[in-house]
C-alpha cells in the first residue's frame, strides 16, 4: 500500500515539476521582421526556461484601445501588454495593469533606467509598467538641400520659418507637417508646445492649463508653417510624411526616424541625411525638447506564477546582449531607455546602426530631453487618456488649420473640449 502511495506522490510531484506557465505577450509591432526578431528572443527564452511558455500575439494600434479593455472584461487579457503611457491609466483604473515598482527598482539597480523613462509610468504612488524603449521626434532633412539653398539648419522658430519658405520651390514642400486628427499630429504639435514652454497640460490640482500664451504661440507657428506643407497633409499619418521625405517631395519633416525608408527607398546616402533637435521658440533655448514616447510592458495578471514568469521574461529582454537585439527589431527607430542598454554592443553593432551612427546618436540625445503631454513633473491624471485617445491636441489644431480660426480662439475652444472630455 505504501509503495502505491509513494508511486502516486512521485507522479504528482513529477507533474508539478513539469507544469508549464503560459505567458501571452501582446504587442503592436506587426511588421514581419519585428515579429521575427521577437520570436527569436522568445524561442531562446523558452528553450532555457522549460517551465515557462511565452507566446506572442500581434495586435494593432488601431484596435488595441478597444480590444484591451474588452479582453479584460471578457477575462482573456494577456499576461503582458506592450503600451504607451496614455494607455496605461485606463488599464490601471480597471485594476488590470499591476503595480510593478519593486520589479522596476530591481531592473533599475541592474541597468539604470533614464529618469524620463520612469516619469511617464510613475503616478498615484505606483509604477505601472516596465519601460522597454524610447522614441523621440526629431527634425529630418537633407544636408544637400540646405547647402543648395545657402541656409543653415534651423535652431529657432524664425530659422525654421525661413528655411521652410526657402525650400518650398519646384514642387517641393518646405516642410511636411500633418494636420490630421490623429496621434502623429498630436505628437508634432506637442513638440512645438514643448519648445515654447507649454509642455504642461495640467495644473498640479488636476485642472487644465492648456489655454495659455505659450500654447497659442505654438499653434500659431504651426499654422504659419503649415502653408509650406503638402495640400493633403490634413490626412497624413507617419507613413505619408516619411514617403514625402523619401521621394524628395518634402524638404524637412518631423519624425521619430526616417532611416529605414531613407535607406531602402531614397538612395541611403548616410552622409546627406541630417537630423537635429526640433527648433525652439525664439529666446527659449533652455526649453529645447521634444515629444517622446516610452513604450512599456504592463503586467496584466495577478496570478503569482504568471506574474513571476512574466517578470522573468521581461528581465530576459532587458539583459544586455538581448536588449540590443530586442530594440533593434527596427534598427534606428527604437532607442534604449537604460544606461546599460545604451552601451549594449548588440545595439550598436547592427549594420543599420553602424551606417547611421551619428544620426542615431543625435536621436538618442534628443530623446533624453523628451516629454509627453499629461506625463510631466508628476502632474499625471488618469483623465489624460480621454485627451490623448480622442486626439484633442490635433482636433484643436484642425480648428485653426481647417476651420480657419485664430490660434488664440482655437486653443480657447480646445480647452473647452478638453474640459468636457475629462469630466
Amino acid at each position: 500500500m505504501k509503495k502505491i502511495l509513494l508511486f502516486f506522490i512521485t507522479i504528482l510531484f513529477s507533474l508539478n515539476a513539469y507544469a508549464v506557465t503560459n505567458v501571452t505577450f501582446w504587442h503592436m509591432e506587426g511588421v514581419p521582421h519585428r515579429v521575427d526578431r521577437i520570436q527569436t528572443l522568445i524561442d531562446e527564452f523558452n528553450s532555457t526556461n522549460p517551465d515557462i511558455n511565452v507566446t506572442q500575439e500581434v495586435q494593432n494600434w488601431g484596435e488595441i484601445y478597444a480590444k484591451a479593455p474588452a479582453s479584460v472584461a471578457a477575462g482573456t487579457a494577456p499576461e503582458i501588454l506592450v503600451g504607451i503611457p496614455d494607455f496605461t491609466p485606463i488599464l490601471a483604473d480597471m485594476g488590470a495593469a499591476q503595480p510593478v515598482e519593486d520589479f522596476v527598482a530591481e531592473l533599475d539597480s541592474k541597468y539604470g533606467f533614464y529618469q524620463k523613462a520612469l516619469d511617464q509610468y510613475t503616478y498615484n504612488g505606483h509604477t505601472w509598467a516596465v519601460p522597454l524603449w524610447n522614441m523621440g521626434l526629431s527634425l529630418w532633412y537633407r544636408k544637400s538641400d540646405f547647402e543648395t539653398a545657402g541656409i543653415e539648419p534651423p535652431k529657432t522658430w524664425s530659422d525654421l520659418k525661413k528655411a521652410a519658405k526657402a525650400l518650398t520651390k519646384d514642387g517641393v514642400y518646405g516642410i511636411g507637417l500633418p494636420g490630421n486628427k490623429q496621434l502623429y499630429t498630436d505628437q508634432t504639435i506637442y513638440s512645438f508646445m514643448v519648445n515654447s514652454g507649454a509642455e504642461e497640460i495640467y495644473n498640479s490640482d488636476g485642472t487644465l492649463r492648456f489655454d495659455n500664451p505659450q500654447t497659442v504661440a505654438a499653434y500659431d507657428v504651426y499654422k504659419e508653417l503649415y502653408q509650406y506643407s503638402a495640400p493633403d497633409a490634413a490626412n497624413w499619418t507617419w507613413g505619408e510624411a516619411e514617403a514625402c521625405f523619401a521621394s524628395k517631395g518634402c524638404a524637412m519633416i518631423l519624425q521619430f526616424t526616417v532611416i529605414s525608408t531613407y535607406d531602402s527607398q531614397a538612395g541611403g546616402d548616410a552622409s546627406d541625411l541630417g537630423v537635429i533637435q526640433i527648433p525652439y521658440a525664439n529666446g527659449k533655448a533652455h526649453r529645447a525638447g521634444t515629444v517622446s514616447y516610452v513604450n512599456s510592458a504592463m503586467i496584466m495578471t495577478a496570478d503569482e506564477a504568471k506574474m513571476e514568469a512574466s517578470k522573468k521574461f521581461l528581465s530576459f529582454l532587458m539583459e544586455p546582449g538581448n536588449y540590443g537585439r530586442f530594440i533593434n527589431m527596427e534598427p534606428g527607430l527604437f532607442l534604449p531607455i537604460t544606461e546599460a542598454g545604451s552601451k549594449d554592443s548588440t545595439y550598436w553593432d547592427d549594420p543599420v546602426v553602424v551606417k547611421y551612427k551619428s544620426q542615431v546618436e543625435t536621436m538618442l540625445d534628443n530623446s533624453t530631453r523628451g516629454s509627453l503631454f499629461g506625463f510631466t513633473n508628476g502632474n499625471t491624471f488618469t483623465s489624460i487618456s480621454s485627451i490623448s485617445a480622442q486626439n484633442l491636441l490635433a482636433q484643436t489644431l484642425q480648428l485653426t488649420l481647417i476651420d480657419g480660426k485664430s490660434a488664440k480662439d482655437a486653443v480657447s475652444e480646445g480647452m473647452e473640449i478638453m474640459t468636457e472630455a475629462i469630466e
Partner: protein
Amino acid sequence: MKKNNIEGWLFVSPLVIWISLIILVPIYIAFELSLFNVKIIGTSGKFVGIDNYIKLFGKSKFLNASLNSFYWIIGNAICQTFFAFTIALTINYKFPGKKIMANWIILSFIIPTVVVVVIWKLMLSSSSGVINSVLIDIGLLDEATGFFSSPNKAFISLVLINSWRWSPFLALIILSGLNSINREMYDASKVDGANFVQQFLFITFPNLKSVLFVLGLVGTLLSFNIFDIIWLITKGGPSSATTTLPLLIYETAFTKFRISQAATLSIVTSFLLLLFSIIFIKSMAPKEDD
C-alpha cells in the same frame, strides 16, 4: 390554429429564434447600458435613467453626425444609381469584350476594403498621386490639390470612392433586372419609333421598379452603415466633416470611452433606421397592379 399554420411556424421558428438571439438580445443589452453611465467596457456605472438620451439631443456632435449621415446617403444614392445604371445599361448591350468588362468591373467590389483605401490614398496623394498629375497635365489644376484637405473635398472624395466600390455590385443587380425584361417590348417600341430615352423611361424603368425598391432599401441601409472606408481614410475628419453616425458611435465607445453614451447613440440610430425602413416600405413598395 390551422395545421398549415402550425407547420409554418415550426419551419420558421429556428430562424425567428436565431434572429431574436442575435438582434433583440444585443438591442436589449444596449438599451439597458444606455440607462447607466458606464465609461469603459466591462466596468460598472451609476443608473442615470434617460439622462443620456436628453443630453444626446442637445449635442452638436450628434446633430453634425446625423446631417453628415443624411448627406452621405443622398450623395451615395445619386452617385451609385448613376454609375450603376450606366454600367448596367452598357453591359446590357452586345459588344466585343462585354464578358471581360462584366468580370473586370466587379473587381472593385471583390478586393478588400483596406486595399481599396491604400490604392485611392496613393492615387489621390498630392505629392505622388497619379490623379493630381493627370489633372495638372490636362490643365484642370494649376497645382496639386489635397483631396482630403478641406471638409467638402474630403466628403465628396469619400462619396466617390465608396460609389466606385459599390456601384458594380448594384449594376449586376440592375443587370439581372434588365435581363428579365421581355425583349419583344423593346422591338415593338422600336417599330413605334421610340428612341433610347423613351425606351428607358417607359419600358426599362417601370419594369425595374421591384429591383429598384430593394436596392433603395438595402442600399440606403448599407450606405448608412459604411464605416471602414471612412475610418481608414479620414477617421471622420477633417474637422469632423466626415463623421457619420456609425463613426460617432465608435469614437464615443472606444476613443472617448463612454460606452453608455455610445449605446444611447446606437439605440437612437437603430430607431431612426427602423423608422426609415417602415416609411420606405409603406410608401415605395411596388403595388400588385404595378
